[in-house]
């Protein structure tokens, strides 16, 4: 996975967590479903571990209706701030890249 792609996916995870808590399998599934954003679902776990270490997400164990307890991930205040900053930069970045990519055609 390239650095750019990986960076973008990190923010996609933060964006998903904005609305509610998710557990790993759900996140992996959602990202794989989303137009093949993630091809190896397993790469989400190192990513979640990094986000947790960097304090952008938090996690808590919750009982599950079936099977063992699950680790649910949620957005921290820092995570919310980072996501907000990224969303602003991303819009400009996307427009610039689009412009440059279509200019020559």
């Amino acid at each position, binding site marked *: *996975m390239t*650095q750019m792609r*990986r960076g973008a996916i990190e923010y996609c995870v933060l964006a998903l967590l904005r609305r509610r808590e998710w*557990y*790993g*399998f759900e996140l*992996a599934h959602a990202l*794989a479903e989303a137009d093949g954003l993630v*091809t*190896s*679902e*397993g*790469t*989400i*776990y*190192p*990513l*979640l*571990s*990094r986000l*947790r*270490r960097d304090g952008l997400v938090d996690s808590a164990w919750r009982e599950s209706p*079936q*099977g*063992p307890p*699950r*680790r649910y991930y949620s957005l921290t205040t820092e995570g919310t701030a980072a996501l907000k900053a990224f969303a602003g930069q991303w819009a400009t970045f996307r427009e610039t890249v689009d412009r440059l990519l279509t200019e020559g055609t």
Partner: protein
Amino acid sequence: MSTTNSPLVDNYLRRLRAALAGLPADRRQDIIEGVTQHIADARLQLGPDSQEGDDAIRGILGQLGDPDVIAADALDAERGSIAAVRPPRSVRNAVWLMYAGAAVSLAAAIADIATRSELREVLARTPMARNLIGTATTATFTQAAAVNLAGVVLFLLMARWTAKGSITARTLACVLSACARWLCLSGPGNCRRSARGRRPCAC
């Protein structure tokens, strides 16, 4: 956490753990735990009928991706980040061996210095012109001490480069050790084994 009783899953997790060896233990544990839980959740979703089928498990593991790919991605992402990445055990062992090599070379160099007068006596017993004994002693002593001190420096440099992840340094260290051994065993001119019966260089 036992997910399974599935050799396929156990094998997969074992491979992943090994591939993640470059990460600190707590991070590695974190990732393994997430993947283990993922497999359990995926199997729950399949329903009781297909839960134990090897094909279903292969499908889940296939979607997770190859352990080496996951680990390579994790290590790549970690590069340049704040968290220190520990080199894998094989590299740490190699670095320790090189430090040991440096220590042996240093000990040999100190032994050379300490036994200089003894060397002179040994050379004096050989059929050699008296006026040459002093020169021969100095030449043999200088050569042996220089080789050993160069060994110390080389071993330390190799250890440093290897710890930084240089494959070339590891290869070079192996070649140099082999050369040192070869010089020791085959070159009486480079080695005072015949004269003193002691292992003279760090090999």
